[in-house]
């Protein structure tokens, strides 16, 4: 029973992965536990996609690239490796929550995550949950949330991986990780880095990206220990980024940016009778320094410490009704050259209920109420349901109210910050259909999001820009995901994954499409496996994207293709090597006006399992 249920949940996941490889991980699930187990248990009526390792490896330079090629999310990237902000279902960057092991890690200052500062290789899995997640993940989970998850297990593992890659534009990267279990212990330690001169040609422009050098270093430690009636876990990560910021087609880049983050999460799970309890404590640290001139030491910066203490209890009644209650206290203290010294306290009470009414029908109701907030304490809710008509077809429906609180920059920025801001609010509904016909898996989702009191910086008297709760938007669209797998014989197979999305995101006052939201985006990967060889072709299409609020200027549509091949040594399965040929057709493209992306380039890699 349980397995069938899991199977239904993962129908969508199958789409983005090789069916056979995926089946393995489903069978492992009872043994491999996510640190954020709520993600799966209380998202049954939501679209949840998981990116497996081979997908991540193909686009591992940054989380931007990983998601750009494998999801419907659009990234506004200021040139390769530079500041990158997402638009998920046509919402803005502050309306996409990035969640690390269940904790919202969007910046205290900007309310968003720069997706180029995150290494996709630092986690057990990356999952994308579409739609409103405010009840579970707090501020900013409007368009959807990106989950960076670590997992643990106590089954026997002794696995060490080392990878190296080298490529065009003097790009060198490496990663090493080891996962060990012994007795009641689980330990996972890893490091990875990427360093690039990033001096690519601007195709057909006779110009070069002269000031886009970057280095990123990430490290992680994940530990779990089985206790008599529970588990204690510790998740920890460190990231360091040092980037020169690229110029554009008509400006010379001179500025630079450095940032450091550390994240630590301690959890203690205990089973008390029928109740599963979990106490957790987390500390997040972020620091940035912006250098207007990379040659000079003058800079402005900020740092923030976030402390989160939470307690939750969960019961499963009659094996059907799962109820989770949680109290979470968050304290944020931030100081910066432009925001002064400020703090924020929030107490949130969350109730999550999931009821498996029958094998076919599953629904959930979730609530969140906040206290102590500086704003009107929002009451958030969501409801979701999933009905499986057959093994081939299932329908899901969800609706939610979500919010986004003003960031410290919005509130306290010198000059302009406005302490009278209130949270943005948004309501949304989604209807999804899941198909599974033989080797063909598909997911078609339609959604509608209505947002108001959106915070926008506008010029006021005397030319001073100030944020205000003024804009209203309406987003709707369709997302489709397709997966197809054919095995010709024991030696050959073909694996196709594709995404297409149509996004209409309207500013209701101007009645125009929001800037940097393309109407059309499609991507796909076709993999051909032959014995120990694997070849793939990957394509990405992004439609015309407006760059001005009156829709008078655009970033042109583009199609980019990448090719790749890899080979695993037949006499030593622990060694794999290969290469990737990116932007094969040497197309000029940009995701932000006048900010060219890389020309044709290659990358070679070597991976060892020890």
């Amino acid at each position, binding site marked *: 029973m349980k397995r069938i249920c899991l199977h239904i949940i993962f129908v969508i996941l199958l789409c983005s992965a090789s069916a056979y490889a995926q089946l393995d991980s489903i069978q492992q699930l009872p043994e491999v536990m996510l640190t954020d187990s709520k993600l799966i248990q209380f998202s049954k009526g939501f679209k949840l996609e998981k990116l497996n390792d081979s997908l991540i490896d193909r686009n591992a330079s940054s989380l931007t690239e990983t998601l750009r090629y494998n999801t419907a999310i659009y990234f506004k990237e*200021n040139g390769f490796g530079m500041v990158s902000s997402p638009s998920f279902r046509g919402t803005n960057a502050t309306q996409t929550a990035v969640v690390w092991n269940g904790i919202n890690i969007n910046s205290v200052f900007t309310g968003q995550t720069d997706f180029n500062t995150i290494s996709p290789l630092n986690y057990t899995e990356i999952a994308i949950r579409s739609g409103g997640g405010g009840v579970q993940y707090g501020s900013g989970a409007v368009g959807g949330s990106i989950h960076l998850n670590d997992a643990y297990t106590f089954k026997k593992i002794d696995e060490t991986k080392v990878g190296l890659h080298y490529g065009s534009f003097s790009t060198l990267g490496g990663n090493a990780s080891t996962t060990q279990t012994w007795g009641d212990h689980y330990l996972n330690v890893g490091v990875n880095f990427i360093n690039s001169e990033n001096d690519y040609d601007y195709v057909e422009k006779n110009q070069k990206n002269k000031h886009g050098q970057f280095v990123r270093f990430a490290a992680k430690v994940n530990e779990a220990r089985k206790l008599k009636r529970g588990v204690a876990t510790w998740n920890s990560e460190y990231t360091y980024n040092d980037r020169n910021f690229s110029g*554009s*087609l*008509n*400006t*010379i880049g001179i500025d630079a940016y450095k940032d450091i983050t550390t994240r630590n999460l301690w959890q203690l799970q205990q089973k008390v009778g029928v109740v599963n309890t979990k106490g957790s404590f987390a500390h997040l640290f972020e620091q940035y320094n912006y250098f*207007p*001139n990379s040659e*000079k030491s*003058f800079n402005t910066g900020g740092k923030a410490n976030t402390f989160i203490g939470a307690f939750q209890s969960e019961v499963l009644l009659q094996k059907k009704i799962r109820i989770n209650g949680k109290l979470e206290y968050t304290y944020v203290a931030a100081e910066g050259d432009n925001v002064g010294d400020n703090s924020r306290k929030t107490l949130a009470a969350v109730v999550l209920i999931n009821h498996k009414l029958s094998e076919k029908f599953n629904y959930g109701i979730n609530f969140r109420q906040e206290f102590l907030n500086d704003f009107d304490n929002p009451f958030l809710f969501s409801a979701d349901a999933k009905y499986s008509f057959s093994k081939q077809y299932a329908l899901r429906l969800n609706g939610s109210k979500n919010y986004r609180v003003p960031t410290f920059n919005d509130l306290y920025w*010198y*000059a*302009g910050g406005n302490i009278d801001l209130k949270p943005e609010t948004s309501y949304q509904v989604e209807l999804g259909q899941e*198909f599974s*016909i033989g080797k*063909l898996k*598909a997911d*078609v989702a339609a959604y509608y999001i209505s947002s108001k009191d959106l915070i926008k910086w*506008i*010029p006021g*008297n*005397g*030319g*001073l820009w100030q944020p205000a709760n003024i804009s209203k938007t309406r987003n709707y669209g369709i997302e*489709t995901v*397709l997966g197809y797998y054919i095995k010709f014989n024991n030696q050959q197979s073909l694996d196709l994954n*594709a995404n*297409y999305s149509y996004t209409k995101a309207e500013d209701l006052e*101007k009645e125009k499409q929001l*800037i940097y939201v393309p109407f*059309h985006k*499609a991507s*796909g990967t076709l993999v051909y496996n032959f014995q120990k060889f694997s070849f793939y072709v990957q*394509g990405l*299409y992004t*439609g015309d994207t407006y*760059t*001005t*609020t*009156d829709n*008078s*200027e655009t970033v042109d*549509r*583009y*199609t980019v293709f990448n090719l790749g091949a890899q080979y695993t040594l037949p006499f030593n399965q622990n060694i794999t090597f290969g290469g990737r040929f990116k932007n094969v057709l040497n197309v000029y493209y940009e995701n*932000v*006006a*006048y*900010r060219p992306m890389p020309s044709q380039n290659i990358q070679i890699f070597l991976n060892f399992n020890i």
Partner: protein
Amino acid sequence: MKKIVFFALTIIFFVSCSKDDNNQEEYVPAAFEKGILVTNEGPFNNGSGNITFISEDYSTVTQNVFRNVNGYSLGNIVQSMGFVDNNAYIVVSNSQKIEIVNRYTFQSLDSITTGLDNPRYFVTAGGNKGYVSNWGDPNDYADDYLAVVDLRTNEITSTIPVPFGPERMVVYNNKVYVAHQGAYGQNNLISVISGTTVESTITVGDVPNSMVVSGNSLYVLCGGKPSYTGTETAGSLVKVDLSTGQVSQTYALGTTQHPTSLTIDGVNLFYSLDGKVYKVNTTSITMPGIDIISGNFYTLQAKDGKLYATDAKDFASKGSLIIYELSTNQEIQSFETGIVPGGIYFN
């Protein structure tokens, strides 16, 4: 199943039709001889500014003048334009350059791409010299300068270190008067440049943001320090006697009043304050004067009985130029411009 096939086809369709290019040829008039020129800064971070031309009889409007004539974009943040004889010197601040064109055809003649560091404005004085105010690093109080351009070679021949935040300049008797608005901070000085040296400095009100010369008087409009500085100061109009180089009179506004965009037509000064345009008669100055027109304007220019005003709207979409008849204070024309119309000039 059908649906899936449909979606697969859709993807293929969108991929395959993406190569079409629709470069539209735009109408290029032979010349821009008589009319109004508007410099449009362009979107702040990413993109290009451009120039809008409106013919004197208002019958033709040409957008993107520079690119249409020369085939390439002007650059990022088209800050201002200066003129010498038949030449226009277009200051493109974030692209760190000056494009030199024939002011009537906009054919590119030359460009200055070295020796500029956040250039702001261009004026000419003393025959073959051009002066360009440069912020340097806008956070650095000590690297500001005027670049002196030899107009025969279009090269920067010397630099004159000046106080923080040089901005607009006017020329009187071959001397350059530089208003130090203060870049990303605030300042309160006028530098007087003679040849390649700073002859003197005149202390005026805080944040001198615009100025005009009338007779032998220099009128300097000072915005005052904004409230966010924590030491808010009143805006003011400062009258400098150019024969002595001394401040002859200061007319203060209220502490929370921060005027901008001083312009002059005949004996009347005009400026913008709190969503209104005010008129002040230079023969009997009282501040704030009388308000004649409502509107939040990005810049103002008065000429021959008309007031030309730009609206930058949300700074991320096309703005407009609005023309008012000053005898009636009524709007007579309105034209679409490029993004962030920041300068109004006349051919």
